[in-house]
């Protein structure tokens, strides 16, 4: 059963065609890593999945429901806002730059959306928040403000914040790119824990994570999927020349 399905997704920024027909499906509990050189469109594609960017053509289905599909003229038509809002809540998003709310404490960051969007009562929201803070190893940091935490801790808070909305899918857009190398491990560990609990995940730009954790790896270049398959096949035995070149460069650098 596909939980997420994208078909022939096209996206232009002005005249620059960033996505040139991307199709992919995600099964429940599957962990997918999207890798590729910068400018390949992988982040844009991830952002299209929950409509941070609008697509020009193609369709996106979440749990069997269309968020967007082609109209009769071949251009993408989005569902009504109410349905989209409901569908988007099934997807948690973690950003490269954390995007915590700096004027709110860690606990307030976690409780805000459950309180405002789900109208959860305060006690329940606090319980959930504390549970997820513990899960990411920050049970003591509820009263802190984001600026008081390291980057790794901030990103773990961001993951906990997304989890508080009880999503079915977690999207990670280059979750460790803004971190000092010694801080990436703690974030990847939290992500691995999630994968072990069968959270459905789509992650960009994490070669190490792709190799160790992902069920499937997608290699993108110039707005197209060049190669995809089991993590080992794609990373250890790539078939396409471009995949080989890319992996050669990144793995050498490691």
């Amino acid at each position, binding site marked *: 059963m596909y939980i997420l399905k994208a078909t022939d997704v096209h996206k232009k920024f002005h005249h620059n065609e960033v996505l040139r027909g991307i199709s992919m499906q995600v099964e429940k509990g599957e962990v997918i890593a999207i890798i590729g050189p910068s400018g390949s469109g992988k982040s844009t594609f991830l952002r299209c999945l*929950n409509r941070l960017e609008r697509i020009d053509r193609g369709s996106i289905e979440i749990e069997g429901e269309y968020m967007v599909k082609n109209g009769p003229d071949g251009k993408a038509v989005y569902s009504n806002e109410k349905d989209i809002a409901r569908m988007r809540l099934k997807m948690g998003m973690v*950003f490269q730059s954390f995007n915590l*709310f700096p*004027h709110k404490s860690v606990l307030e960051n976690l409780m805000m*959306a459950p309180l*405002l*969007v789900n109208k959860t009562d305060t006690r329940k929201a606090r319980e959930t928040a504390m549970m997820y803070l513990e899960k990411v190893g920050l049970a003591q940091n509820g009263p802190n403000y*984001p600026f008081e935490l390291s980057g790794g801790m901030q990103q773990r808070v961001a993951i906990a914040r*997304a989890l508080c909305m009880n999503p079915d899918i977690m999207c990670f857009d280059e979750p460790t790119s803004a971190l000092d190398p010694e801080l990436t491990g703690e974030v990847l560990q939290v992500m691995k824990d999630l994968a072990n609990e069968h959270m459905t995940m789509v992650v960009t730009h994490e070669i190490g994570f792709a190799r160790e954790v992902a069920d499937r790896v997608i290699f993108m270049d110039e707005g197209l999927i060049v190669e995809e398959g089991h993590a080992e096949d794609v990373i250890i035995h790539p078939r396409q020349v471009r995949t080989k070149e890319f992996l050669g460069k990144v793995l050498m650098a490691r």
Partner: protein
Amino acid sequence: MDYISSLLPFMLEGTVITLKLFFLTLIMVLPLGVFMALARLSKFKPLNGFTQFYIWVFRGTPLLLQLLFIYFGLGTIGINIDRFPAALLAFILNYTAYLAEVYRSGIQSIDQGQFEAADVLGLNRWQTLTRIILPQMIKRVLPPISNEVINLIKDTSLVYAIGISELLRVAKIAAVRDAIFVPFIVAAVFYLIMTAVIQQTFKWLENRYAYYR
């Protein structure tokens, strides 16, 4: 000394007028500026266009001219407004334009990621604005707002032009009557006291917002 204390009752009366104009303007323009800034940032073309035009007109002409226009100019076409309401109207119109631009720069300085984070968490536009964007905007605009507020207290002296007896006009009348410069010095001291209070207020506000970065 006796001379100064003989001046004080008049000077205080003038100060009351000054402060009345100051506070009434302030409580109107602080929120109005926010709405104007939001209108200025609106993607709805007519609203956006109107605000740009409005800001151009009210920042692009002298406040004194606006004051004269509203009091005397409108009078010539049959719209008569009393001195004080006319002054208040001119100040509100003018300062809303200035504050709108300050707020706009504050809103635009907020990282796009804040909007996106609120968006993916399901917050609607109003919640995003009132819970995420405006609270952070206020911290950033406090220094430029304090500038505007200090300008405002000094600009109140312009209403002498339509015959309102605020602090500076009272001082001028006394100075001319007694052929002495002392009343101006007293007025300067009064202004300095008022601006000092404003400065301290903003210092306190900035400290209150210093709990996060």
